[in-house]
Each structure stands twice: as C-alpha cells, then as structure tokens.
C-alpha cells in the first residue's frame, strides 16, 4: 500500500477520481483511505470530498435534507439553482419534486416489465457472440465487441430509436462521465446529447405516439390532464441514455474480467443454475460500477472532515461495498454469499430506477457468454484498461477464447 501513498501522491489529500492511477488501483486506495482517512479530499474539479466508509456513504445517501442531488456528476461546472428538478430528473431531483417524477418512470422498469425484455436481450447477446465466433480470432476484445453493445441496444429498443444511434450514445457518455469538463468548447453542437434529444423529440412530434418509452413520456398526462413539461421529458430521456449504458456495460465487463481469472467461479455458474442469482449479486457488490455525487447544502463535519455548503461529495458505493465493517470477509469474492445488502444500486429515494433492467442484462450477458464460451482467459492482463471517473469498468478487455461450446 505504501507505493500508493508515497512518493507521488497521498490520496487522502490529493484525491482525484479522474486520474488514471485511481482507475487502475481504486480498490486498494479505498481500503487504505477507509483505515486512515475516512473522508479524503482533493482540490481537483473545484474541490471534492470522498467518504470511503459504508456508514458515511449510507448516511449521506439517505440524507436529502443536508445534501442536494442538483449535481450528481462532479465537474468544475457545478450546477446551481436547478433544484428541485435538475437537468435529468429524477436522479438530479430533490424532494418533494423527486417522488412524482420517479413514479412516472418506475412502471417501465418494474420486474414484470423488464422480464418482457429478456428474450430480446438474450438474442442481442447471441448475435454479438455469433460475430465474435465467426471471426475466427482467438483473441477478442470483450469490452469492444461484446459488453459495450448490450445496454446500448437494449436502451435504444426501449426508447424506440434506431439501434445505430448507440454509437453516438457512447460518445456522449464518454464526454460526460469519463472526462467531465475537459471537452468543453471543442464539441460541434450537432454532436451533443442536447441536440440529439431535441432532434429526436421534434421528429417524434410529427408522428402519432409510438408504443415505447419516448411515446409514453410524450403522451403522459397527470390527474388533471396536463402533459409533462418539455424539460422533464428532455431530462428523462437524457437520464435514460446516460445512466443505463456505461454503468451496465461496466458491470458486465468487470464480471467477465473476474470470470476470466476464476475457473472455479465459471464452472459453478455453468453447472449450478441455483447459484446464479447469488453470483450476480456478488458480482454487483464486488464490482459495483457507480459512484454518485451530492452537493452539501450546509456546513457540517463528517468523520472530522469540515465540509462547507456547496462542496462536492462523491458517494462511492463500490468502496462502501468492500467495507469490512459492513460485510463479512468483505475483501473476498464469495460466489454464493448469503447475506449481501450491497449498495451497487445506491440506497434511499434515489435507488437506481433501472436496477431490475441492469440486473437482467448482467445475468443474461454472463449466462450467454459462458454457455457459448465456457473457457477463456485474459489475453493480456496488463492491457486491461479501467475507466476513469464515476463509472468504473474495463474499457479494453482482450480475452483469449479457449473453448467454444
């Protein structure tokens, strides 16, 4: 651990989640900080606090009085005066506006609604695997050729936009999440998410409502017969594009990375279907991709850290998930863990609205990969590149296929 503290930097005082070193060493950094500096700080991005203990992360996630969700992606451009809706409700919304905006979306993501998407998701996975196996390459990049395409295609289908728009979604996401702020001023307006949504809604307005999520939002009427405000529809669509894609692709990628290195876990999943629900939750605990953020609404002290009103705080669910105070044998991957109250999807009123979808995609992606490619290994362990920013997962994942089913 000393090599992480010395001599180049001390993560407790120069924390930066967008640093390549953080991306490569995050779990070790969390373990180190949890023990000696439970709320780290860094000056980057205008100043950010980083609590690493489960207790603090849970308390902040549940405290909508002292923290606002007006900003959930740390950036030098700190949102202000956007409450209560924010730019992408309900994730950026605060009470009391939050509950109503969330209730509109929840039915589309309920377990029963998501079940209906499972056959098409399975088909998508198999199309991608068909292409991989047809290419006769024994080394393939599983992130580039498999994981990144799955959530893009599922979300495009849910929204009712052409599947080929997915490539543009990945570009928006890379800019917004992986390197926040750094692309400012260099993007053509027609290559922005705002332009994309605007064009999509204009085009949809010329046609009768379709039976998809955009159609649902456009034709939604409240009890008094009022439509949703344009900015709410706009924000909802932005959220669905941003929140549901690299998050899920990161979880699938990290899971395939883990399984590539653990033959026992691969065999267990293939041979014992009853373990699959437990394995999926343990993969979510151990490789939770999402770190959220909040902005403090007032001055306060947390574990000795003197936080000021309007300061950014990161909410690292992945770090909380590995806290030994909260999980037995927290640092070990236990494929059939029986007590697993993990926070991969957050806690409290902002629990990931798409969690049922993400869980289904992760399960199906792993099941189909292992069914068709039961034996594979990392082709270049050093060549695996983990993403920077608030969504953690492998962006390059070269694997060698050892056996096709």
């Amino acid at each position, binding site marked *: 651990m000393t090599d992480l503290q010395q001599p180049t930097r001390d993560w407790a005082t120069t924390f930066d989640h967008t640093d390549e070193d953080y991306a490569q060493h995050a779990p070790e950094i969390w373990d180190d900080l949890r023990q000696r500096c439970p709320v780290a700080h860094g000056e980057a991005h205008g100043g950010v606090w980083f609590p690493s203990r489960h207790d603090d992360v849970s308390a902040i996630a549940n405290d909508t009085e002292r923290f606002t969700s007006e900003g959930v992606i740390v950036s030098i451009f700190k949102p202000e005066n956007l409450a209560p809706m924010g730019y992408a409700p309900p994730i950026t919304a605060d009470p009391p506006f939050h509950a109503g905006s969330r209730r509109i979306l*929840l039915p589309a993501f309920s377990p*029963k609604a998501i079940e209906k998407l499972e056959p098409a998701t399975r088909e998508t996975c198999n199309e991608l695997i068909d292409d991989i196996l047809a290419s006769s390459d024994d080394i393939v990049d599983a992130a580039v050729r498999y994981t990144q395409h799955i959530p893009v295609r599922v979300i495009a289908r849910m929204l009712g936009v052409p599947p080929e728009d997915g490539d543009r979604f990945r570009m928006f996401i890379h800019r917004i999440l992986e390197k926040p702020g750094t692309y400012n001023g260099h993007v053509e307006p027609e290559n922005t998410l705002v332009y994309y949504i605007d064009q999509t809604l204009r085009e949809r307005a010329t046609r009768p409502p379709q039976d998809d999520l955009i159609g649902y939002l456009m034709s939604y009427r409240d009890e008094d017969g009022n439509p949703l405000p344009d900015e709410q529809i706009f924000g909802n669509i932005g959220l669905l594009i941003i929140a549901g894609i690299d998050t899920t692709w990161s979880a699938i990628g990290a899971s395939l990375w883990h399984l590539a290195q653990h033959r026992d876990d691969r065999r267990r999943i293939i041979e014992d279907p009853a373990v699959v*629900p437990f394995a999926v939750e343990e993969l979510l605990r151990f490789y939770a991709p999402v770190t959220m953020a909040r902005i403090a609404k007032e001055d306060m002290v947390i574990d000795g850290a003197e936080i000021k009103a309007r300061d950014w705080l990161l909410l690292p669910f992945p770090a909380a998930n590995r806290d030994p105070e909260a999980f037995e044998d927290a640092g070990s991957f236990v494929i059939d863990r029986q007590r697993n109250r*993990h926070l991969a*999807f957050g806690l409290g009123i902002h629990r990931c609205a798409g969690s049922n979808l993400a*869980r289904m995609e992760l399960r199906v992606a792993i099941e189909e990969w292992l069914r068709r490619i039961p034996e594979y290994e990392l082709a270049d362990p050093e060549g695996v590149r983990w993403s920077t920013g608030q969504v953690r997962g492998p962006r390059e994942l070269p694997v060698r296929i050892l056996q096709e089913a």
Partner: protein
Amino acid sequence: MRIAYDREKCQGHGRCYALAPELFDADDEGYAIVLVSGELTDEQLAGAQLAADNCPEYALTIEP
C-alpha cells in the same frame, strides 16, 4: 415467526421477490408485496430470512 415489512423503508430494490418469490411479489412500481400473513412454516422461514438478510434498506425483519 412472521414477516414485518416497512413500506416506508422499502425502495424497491427487488431483492426479496427475486430470492423468495413464493413469499413476495412486486407492485407495478417495483415495491414489495408480502404474500403470506401470520406464522411462517419452517420452509417459509428460510426464504423469509434470506430476503431479510439481503434487503439493502432493512425494510424486512423476521419477528416472533
């Protein structure tokens, strides 16, 4: 033993009805519905305990 469900704490994580569908269902928004009332059989108790042990919000408890 019986299931105590706190609707105020439930945030619709869906762990209970995934782990013990014989005891829990989900409403249209994904919040839990407890399907059994009263005393649990031994077999039901195992499923109920599993659901409670995996609820991130501590919305489920098993009570005498």
